[in-house]
């Protein structure tokens, strides 16, 4: 069962996590730029963070057989800190890099005017640089925040199929799928979403344009949640093909819109899955 985790903060994880993820079948990850728990105080901190996302972290992942790409943005929380306003001016130099497959995480935390501005400016950058966008939805006031998010996405002019709206739940999934955007779900040990609720959502809404991620970071989280959702899907009667759609084909299709996704076996979808000698083919045989 080859797995692509479309949202995981590996900078905060250990080498043992990488080993266990590989063992569970994870072969590709996307690490979105987000906040670090401890607030940053200067744009220079972001330069070092972004450099790590395109430099050290993909190297670290490669040592464990996992392909690492990232998304780059000023996150919604820190968009509220006036000391960091110029981070947005630094983004263009990162948005042309090979490893960068989307603008993100952008969106809302507390839905302030500063967040409005950062969100719309960064959606414009996604259009300008030909990148998809990964949009975080707020943990508080989620339904209202998601509705407002979809309005801003629509107003920006970006094609909805180039946007993932993330951290959804039972109350926000329908409006996102109806908008034409991709629906992202972060499966956590006890908040956001769990495996069984995820399976129920997949039964109700199907597998099309649905992404499942672990969003594992420095908080209580589990980098193997993608695999656990796959197992729960099989136990609930979904087929292997359904699992592959959700855990491999969908994230690959979403980020491939960047033109920069470089997975083992090459860009060509068939090469990735069917080439007899590819790494992923070997995994499929083991599974």
């Amino acid at each position, binding site marked *: 069962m080859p797995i692509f985790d479309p949202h995981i903060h590996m900078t905060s994880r250990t080498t043992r996590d990488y080993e266990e993820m590989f063992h569970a079948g994870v072969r590709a990850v996307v690490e979105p730029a987000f906040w670090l728990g401890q607030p940053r105080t200067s744009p220079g901190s972001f330069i070092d963070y972004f450099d790590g996302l395109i430099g*050290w972290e993909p190297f670290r992942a490669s040592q464990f057989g996992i392909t690492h790409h990232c998304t780059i943005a000023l996150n919604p929380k820190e968009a509220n800190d006036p000391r960091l306003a110029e981070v947005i001016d630094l983004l263009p*130099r990162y948005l*042309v*890099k*090979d*490893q960068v497959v989307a603008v993100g995480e952008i969106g809302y935390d507390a839905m302030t005017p500063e967040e409005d501005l950062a969100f719309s400016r960064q959606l414009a950058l996604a259009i300008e640089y030909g990148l998809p966008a990964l949009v975080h939805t707020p943990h508080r006031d989620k339904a209202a925040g998601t509705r407002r998010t979809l309005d801003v996405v629509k107003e920006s002019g970006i094609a909805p199929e180039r946007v993932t709206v993330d951290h959804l739940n039972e109350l926000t999934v329908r409006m996102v799928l109806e908008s034409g955007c991709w629906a992202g779900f972060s499966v956590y040990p006890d908040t956001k979403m769990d495996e069984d609720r995820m399976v129920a959502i997949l039964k109700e809404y199907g597998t099309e344009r649905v992404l499942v991620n672990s969003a594992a970071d420095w908080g209580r989280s589990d980098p193997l949640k993608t695999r656990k959702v796959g197992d729960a899907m099989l136990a609930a009667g979904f087929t292997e093909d359904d699992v592959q759609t959700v855990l491999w084909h969908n994230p690959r299709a979403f980020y491939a819109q960047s*033109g920069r996704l*470089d997975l083992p076996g090459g860009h060509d979808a068939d090469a990735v899955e069917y080439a007899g000698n590819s790494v992923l083919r070997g995994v499929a045989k083991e599974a």
Partner: protein
Amino acid sequence: MNTTPTAVTSETLHASLAGVLSDEALTWIEDARATLGRAPERVTFYSAITALRCGRAPLGAALPGWTADDAVRVLLLCALRPGLADGPLADRVEEVYRQGDSAERRAVLRALPLLKLARHCQSLLRDALRTNDPRLIGAALGPCATALDQRAWRDGVLKCVFVGVPLTEVAGLRERMDADLLRMFGDYAAERRAAGRPVPDDLAAFLDLKED
């Protein structure tokens, strides 16, 4: 054991790319080089998008360890040369390194000898040697390593052994080898034996030399 990587020139790079890249990509390179002659500040942009335009195909036996994007980036950096004196050229090259990902940084290190800038850019070599990324460490000990003083060079070579960079990547290793580095190799081998761990083959070859 071949300890001296083949000398690379812009002619060998052009020749190796001609067999690998499409006409479209080759035209893109020429256009980019012409633009950089007029507008050197664009080099960070062109360096970043090189692999998207030209791919990363290996260049084969003539340039082992080189990929198409490496060679193209080096040619782009060389296009800055005619228009700039050493100082401003070094500033531009340093900017590409500082803003680059690991592949771009490696290309800068590989370009330094062709640009005759290794001495101006010693700080970049030292930066690369402080990383734990074998691609950068190996590149810093390639032909550009003539700019490193003997102490920094010895430490870099020993770091290669530590992180698994083959010593064949170190330019002029046998010529530059000295008693201090042989002693460091010997001490490291002793540490490995004391820990019950194997002595890397690369190291063993030099320790045999010492006993000769």
